[in-house]
Each structure stands twice: as C-alpha cells, then as structure tokens.
C-alpha cells in the first residue's frame, strides 16, 4: 500500500522576508566633510568654531559615542553599513535618517541651520545614495525655516531616492502648528512622508526636553521620547493638519511603540469630551492615526512575557501602523533576524516591508 506523505511543514524554509529598514543612521565623520557643500561663510564658521553650534544632544550616549562598539572602528561608515547591515541582515531598502544635522534646528541663526541641512542633503546624495541602490533618504529639514525648507524640498524632493523628510523631536512649536504648513505643502507636492526622530530636545532655541525640566542622564532622556512624539501627534490631529493635508504621513522613529494603544485611546476619550473646542477634528483621533501616523519598532519593547507583544500590536492596528527599524549602527540596534520572531508570518511581512510600501508614497519594491 502506498502512503502519500503530506509535505513536512517543519522543514519548510521560511521565505526571505522583504525588509525595509526605516531607521539607518548615516552621517559624516567630520564637519569638514560638509565644507564643499556650504557657502564659504558657513564653511569658515564651522572651521573656526567647530560643531559646537549645531550640537544636537547634551548627554553622553550609550555604546561608544552612541554607536555599537563593534562598529566604532570601522574605517568607512558607508562600507560597514552595506556589509554589516544591508548584506548580513538582508535589508532590501534602508531609509537613511541621518543624525548629524538634527541639531541645526536648534541653532539661533536659522540661515546657518538651513545651510547645514542643504549641505548635508547634498553630501548624502553624493556620498551615500549614489553608492548603493538600496539606500533611500529622509532629507534633513531645518524646522525653524519652513519657507526656506519648502524650497529645499522642491529642490531635491523629486530625486528618486528621497522618500521623506526628517525632523527632530525637539522643536519650538509642536509640528501640527500652522507655521509648518509650507513644509507639509511641499511634502504633498513631492509625495514625501514626514519622519520625526528623537533628537534636539532642550537644545539651542528648542523647548526644554521635558516640562519637568532637564534630566541629568542619558537614560532619563531616553524615557521622554514617547511623550515628545505624543505632543507632536496631538498637535497634528487637533490643529487639523491631517484635514489640511490629506496626503500627510507621519512616521515616528525610535521611541518604541507599546505606548501607542494607550495614547490613542486617551485621545479618543478626550475628543469625545472636548470635541467642541476643535470641531475641525471630524473623526475620532484613532481614525486619523490609522490613516496618517506610523511608528517604528525601535527600540523594541520587551514586556515580561514576550508573547504579550502580539496583543499590543493588535491593539494599535500594528499590521498597518508599525514599521520595522534597526537603528543601525547605534548601540541599541535591533537585528531583524532577532526581532519580533514570534509573530505570525503574515504580521511579520506587514511590519518588515509591506506597510512601509504603503506609508512612503514614492517607495517602490526593488526590481
């Protein structure tokens, strides 16, 4: 008698996951790398005074100068990113989220800050994007110069690799405020998403890092990331930004995600009570969030029981709202091979790649 065997599912090879990494930090090794892209007056200013003006943080970071210690001595930032991240972790698309230009938003001289952002954008296109087709860019934006940055977005926003802008968490006004309208108009024109990355809080002209003042230590500072994003998210919703800009997509990078369900519930409750003060908010905040707001996975949240993550992800409609990010090469890097491995394949495909394709209007799958 012949026995037909069902294919052994345990031996099934997991198909290669399509991965979009929404948080890959690139940069330059020295401010002098930017001199060729700066007007002489600003190149000289940097040469004479160094990066003390545009400094973005006042704490010690983790790891070695914020980076993974096994990465620090890499001779070439770009080559190490390609080899250790893109190749080893099989990343299909890496969104470059910068680092060095965040502090520009806090410089009292707005024109200097804008010049640094423009220079960094040109540097990025020439030294990073041109050298690997897996790179995409979230272009640097000086948030205190919305009109100037609208021009900057029109200048390079049509470059095929530019898929977003990136703004630091620290600001003078939360990001739903009307002062930023020219930036969002330009993003809609150029089909760019808006990314927000923790940085610049309490720096230069920006507001203090918490309403409770300045924490002493880096680890304290890390705890205030989600509240900063909460402030921006409430602002986008209750200032009517998503009504004004239906194409606006906001991606909150590097503040974890487990806070999202609670926060969205809180906004819905308070909207029911206080709707009359902002009647241009036509729908419950949760609906705007589902349509317009994304968060990335980094740094991954670790409940006591890892299985609880799936419940949290369901509460936040994470099949739509959650995007993978590795934060390479920073010390708290999340390796995609070790991240959210317990989730069902269907959900992993959404989080690691499919949802990003829906979030960034210009992003196309490779090939």
């Amino acid at each position: 008698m012949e026995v037909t065997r069902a294919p052994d599912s345990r031996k099934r090879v997991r198909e290669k996951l399509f991965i979009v990494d929404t948080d890959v930090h690139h940069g330059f090794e020295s401010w002098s790398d930017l001199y060729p892209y700066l007007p002489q007056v600003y190149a000289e200013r940097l040469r004479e005074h160094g990066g003390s003006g545009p400094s973005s943080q006042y704490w010690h970071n983790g790891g070695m100068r914020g980076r993974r210690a096994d990465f620090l001595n890499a001779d070439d930032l770009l080559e190490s990113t390609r080899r250790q991240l893109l190749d080893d972790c099989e990343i299909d698309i890496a969104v470059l989220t910068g680092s060095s230009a965040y502090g520009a938003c806090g410089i009292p001289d707005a024109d200097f800050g804008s010049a640094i952002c423009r220079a960094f954008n040109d540097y990025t296109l020439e030294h990073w994007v041109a050298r690997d087709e897996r790179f995409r860019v979230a272009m640097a934006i000086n948030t205190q110069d919305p009109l100037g940055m609208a021009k900057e977005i029109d200048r390079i926003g049509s470059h095929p690799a530019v898929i977003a802008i990136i703004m630091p968490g620290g600001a003078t006004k939360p990001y739903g405020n009307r002062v930023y309208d020219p930036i969002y108009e330009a993003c809609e024109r150029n089909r760019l998403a808006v990314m927000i990355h923790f940085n610049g809080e309490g720096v230069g002209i920006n507001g203090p890092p918490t309403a409770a003042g300045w924490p002493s230590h880096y680890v304290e500072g890390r705890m205030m990331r989600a509240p900063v994003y909460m402030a921006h998210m409430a602002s986008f919703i209750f200032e009517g930004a998503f009504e004004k800009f239906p194409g606006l997509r906001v991606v909150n990078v590097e503040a974890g995600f487990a806070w999202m369900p609670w926060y969205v519930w809180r906004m819905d409750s308070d909207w029911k009570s206080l709707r009359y003060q902002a009647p241009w908010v036509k729908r419950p905040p949760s609906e705007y969030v589902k349509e317009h707001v994304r968060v990335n996975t980094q740094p991954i949240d670790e409940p006591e029981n890892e299985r609880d993550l799936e419940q949290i992800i369901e509460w936040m409609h994470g099949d739509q709202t959650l995007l993978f990010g590795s934060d390479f090469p920073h010390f708290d890097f999340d390796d995609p091979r070790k991240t959210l491995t317990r989730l069902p394949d269907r959900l992993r495909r959404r989080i690691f790649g499919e949802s990003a394709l829906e979030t960034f209007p210009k992003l196309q799958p490779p090939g």
Partner: protein
Amino acid sequence: MGRHVICRADELQPGAVRIIEAEKRSIGIFNIRGDFYALRNTCPHKGAPLCRGIITGLAVSDEPLQLRITRDGEIVRCPWHGWEFDILSGRSVYNPHRMRVKTYDVAVEPMAEEDPSVETYPVQVEEDYIVLYI
C-alpha cells in the same frame, strides 16, 4: 404610556430646563425657543444627570482652525465628561448613529382650570399646560 401634566407652559421659559420625576424616571423638559422637548436625565456614558449640563449650541468648522456655533440652545453637554447630545433627537454629537439618549413626546395642551380667587361663581379659564407622554 402615561400622560403627565407638568406645569403651565409659561412657567418654563425659553432656554430653561425643568427636571421632573415620572414613572420612576428622571426626565428633563427643555423649552427651546417656545418648543418643548424631553430627554431622559441619564447620560448613556456613566449615568450622570445629563439634563443638568450646560445648554449650548453646536460647534462646527468649515475649515481647520475656524469654528462657529450653530443651533444655539439645542445641545446639552453632559455635566460630567462633556459628551454632547442633540436635545431635539437625543442623538450624541460625536456618534449620532450609535449613541443616544431616550427622548419623550411633549405637548402643549389647553386645559380648563378653576380660578380659586373667584369664590362665589366658579369659572374656568383655559390655560396652556406642558404635557409629557412616556
């Protein structure tokens, strides 16, 4: 269905509300510009005495950051957490299709009343009364 005579119509002025008990229910009777409406005095959210909330209009917006008030006096805002209800229909403003408070019919009916000041010859005067139907 019970019929309850509440008070003389001129005892409840426009913009005012009177809360009464009828058939073991607390009910608010509102006078909106001379028309009368009745709502169950229990908020569907957490049971607050809804009809003791602020009587206001409907805040609407034609474009972001612009707001104006329409339907002045036709909305009651719950005294506890501020949910708004349309006094005319009982529907909640934030979710009119799924959240509502019970409404009741109110009529104004003329009724004969004996005038006690006239002792010798009892007369009857016709007066308008607010009548609630449950």
